[in-house]
């Protein structure tokens, strides 16, 4: 296959960027999208030009490091997969492919197609955990958990923290990401003691990072590579209002 790529190039957050066109030649349909970029980068390197910078690591859809806004979709046109799992057989010979970074105020550009998603880490640091120290915990089977609950918690826990939900949202809202963690821990007995405190701390941090608000468009769910459901957001809102109405004092007492 031969393709034309329109790629966003930007040296760093301080400079402005622009689209540059490249030819991708002799691409095999069995290649992954990132392998196609590897090929382009090898030829740029041979010419002494700077290769295109993009984030990636596991290349099997689990680390959440890859991003890329491809032809107007985060992680490309196929549902339920990440960019690294996208294969070139999805495209046709001669096609022009536009490749951009995630665009959101809370995700400043690092270089070319890579962005800074450390805001996600800071939200998790604000409360995405159960406060137990190592050692001295009860036996793993001490508290039975109904299989349906465990499975539901697991589904929320499969979020890979990629940020596609933010990139997809016209308001750059991070609600789907934040609600996935809140739902996972909120469903499990281990997460109960800090349930209301957690939701308030994480939402407060989310707001502080400059993510937009949710207007229920559902673009996040449609583009999420792990198919995290909007019901997570409903649960989070529930817990949040419940906390605000009845349990807010707890946070102020225990907050750091």
């Amino acid at each position: 296959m031969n393709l034309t790529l329109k790629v966003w190039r930007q040296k760093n957050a301080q400079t402005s960027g622009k689209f540059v066109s490249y030819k991708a030649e002799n691409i095999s349909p069995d290649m992954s999208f990132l392998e196609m970029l590897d090929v382009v980068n090898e030829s740029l390197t041979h010419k002494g030009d700077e290769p295109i910078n993009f984030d990636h690591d596991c290349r099997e859809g689990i680390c959440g490091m890859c991003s890329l806004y491809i032809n107007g979709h985060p992680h490309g046109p196929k549902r339920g997969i990440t960019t690294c799992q996208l294969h070139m057989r999805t495209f046709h010979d001669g096609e022009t492919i536009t490749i951009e970074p995630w665009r959101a105020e809370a995700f400043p550009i690092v270089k070319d197609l890579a962005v800074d998603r450390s805001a996600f880490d800071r939200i998790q640091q604000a409360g995405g955990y159960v406060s137990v120290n190592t050692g001295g915990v009860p036996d793993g089977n001490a508290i039975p958990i109904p299989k349906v609950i465990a499975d539901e918690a697991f589904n929320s826990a499969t979020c890979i923290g990629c940020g596609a939900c933010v990139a997809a949202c016209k308001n750059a809202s991070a609600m789907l990401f934040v609600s996935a963690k809140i739902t996972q821990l909120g469903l499990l007995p281990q997460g109960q003691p800090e349930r209301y405190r957690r939701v308030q701390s994480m939402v407060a941090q989310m707001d502080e990072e400059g993510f937009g608000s949710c207007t229920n468009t559902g673009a996040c769910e449609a583009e999420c590579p792990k198919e995290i459901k909007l019901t997570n957001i409903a649960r989070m809102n529930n817990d949040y209002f419940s906390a605000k109405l009845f349990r807010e004092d707890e946070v102020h007492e225990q907050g750091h």
Partner: protein
Amino acid sequence: MTLDAKIPQGPLAEKWSKHKFDLKLVNPANKRKYDIIIVGTGLAGASAAATLGELGYNVKAFCFQDSPRRAHSIAAQGGINAAKNYQNDGDSVFRLFYDTIKGGDYRARESNVHRLAEVSVNIIDQCVAQGVPFAREYGGLLDNRSFGGSQVSRTFYARGQTGQQLLLGAYSALNRQIHAGKVKMYTRHEMLDVVTIDGHAKGIVTRNMLTGAIDTHDGHAVLLCTGGYSNVFYLSTNAIGSNVTAAWRAHKRGAFFGNPCYTQIHPTCIPVTGDHQSKLTLMSESLRNDGRVWAPKTVEIAEQLRKGTLKADQVKEDDRDYFLERKYPAFGNLVPRDVASRNAKEMVEEGKGVGGSGFAVFLDFADAIKRLGEETVKAKYGNLFDMYIQITDENPYKQPMRIYPAVHYTMGGLWVDYNLSTTIPGLYALGECNFSDHGANRLGASALMQGLSDGYFVIPYTLGDYLAKIGPKKVDTNHPAFAATKKDVVDHVNKLLALKGTKTTNEYHRELGHIMWEYCGMARTDEGLRKAKGLIQALKADFWKNAIVTGENEEVNASLERAGRVADFIELGELMIDDALMRKESCGGHFRVESQTADGEALRDDENFAFVAAWEFKGENQPEELHKEQLTFEAVHLSQRNYA
């Protein structure tokens, strides 16, 4: 220097308890006076950082990804072992210990392995308490599955994403300590050297991968938790960024490298399709619980399958050779990885390989789907099947998967004593980065167990002993060693940036991978290894003349990062060859063609090779010096492994 493994005295089952009591403790009020550097925040590093932070130490943690949640541990699929015996099927600490020693082909240290089996049970409790959503049965209790090399069900799992869930658990504990101010996290930082003062590790040098700033960091101790080096083979199941640089630079500063040639080739990976391939994808070993491995009985049928004139499901039952079930009736498809891999290779060499390239055998779920129904199979393995479909465009619910072995894990790594200390006092190695617990072959679901054991339950004790002995006096950052080591790093970076040749570092890496796979892969010969050594030396010389590195230091520069890693892989490759040449026996994943039994199994030579090889760096382009840690076995009887 003589190697001292510092194995505690006393009966095997009491060593760890007794040792914990004998270790010195750091007074709680003094803990905050100690700074601990942790490089790597995968399972081993994140669990260590969180636990040491909870104890009150000041921790500085580093990783090269943009978040600790992305460490390669995230990709582990199948599960984690623990001797809980929840299934009442005869498991025990001793059995897990025994299986691990035997699975490792009697090349691991008994005392370490027993400790690992002991603390395995605590790991599961810890993870459950953190909110890790393990798979459960309808009664609400934890579910288990069995894994290769064992006859009991002791593997805990979270669908096909166990590593992800365990890492997110450790990451959450780490986040809590970051929030509490006890851990300072440095992401997108690459460690490039260790600073030693009077022979003790006192700091590291890092490069900030966003700005290029090269800085020193001081600490009373340094923990390397930087993962394995499978990517020396270029193609492996590891993440693209996994590398040996941290361990290798530490090696060059005096940390001995243990058993570098012990690598694990995993039997069930998606076969290579072409030269563009950047990595290989594992299909979890858990699939062998329900999938049956087979190859066509005759070369003629294989030929038709390769050409596509015959489809796998059209091959008659009588024409299929379920070779693992045939040769190993007791373990069947669940034989250890090295055995399964070598058998697949044999089939291919006999001309019975399938798929376009002929480098594959089948893993078939037809029987499982008949027996359990498609829904059950989907619930167990759905995400793996999806992954397979994505990559191959074939449907394993309808057609058997094609699989072939690929490099997956490195049992070798920095040599450590019982306390996880390297030969540089104050420098520790945890997780896949050390050589310890798996001998010459790792059993499935045991790496996650070891990483978390090292981080949550071992290092918090053993490190305290060292710290109590050296005392909390501040590290002297004006010591010339800091400036000198930093200068070495700057010089190395500049040397790389000056390379403006004709070949990309990726091309060198691929070439190195070809050499390693061909001569130091599933079967190794004296002749081949000697040839490989020459090839690698030539490759190294050529790299430093003709490689291309683009850009400058003061920016995000993936080309520079890659170049440094490839340069280190080339040097490591040579040491692996030396180690493989030296070890004239076969054991576990190290198969020397000259040393095999009549039926082609690995043949050990316990008389001459029951030792750990620990290599000492002696200077650039000098032969390394071999030190031997003799292995003694008291609790198990050395025997030829037999899985029939």
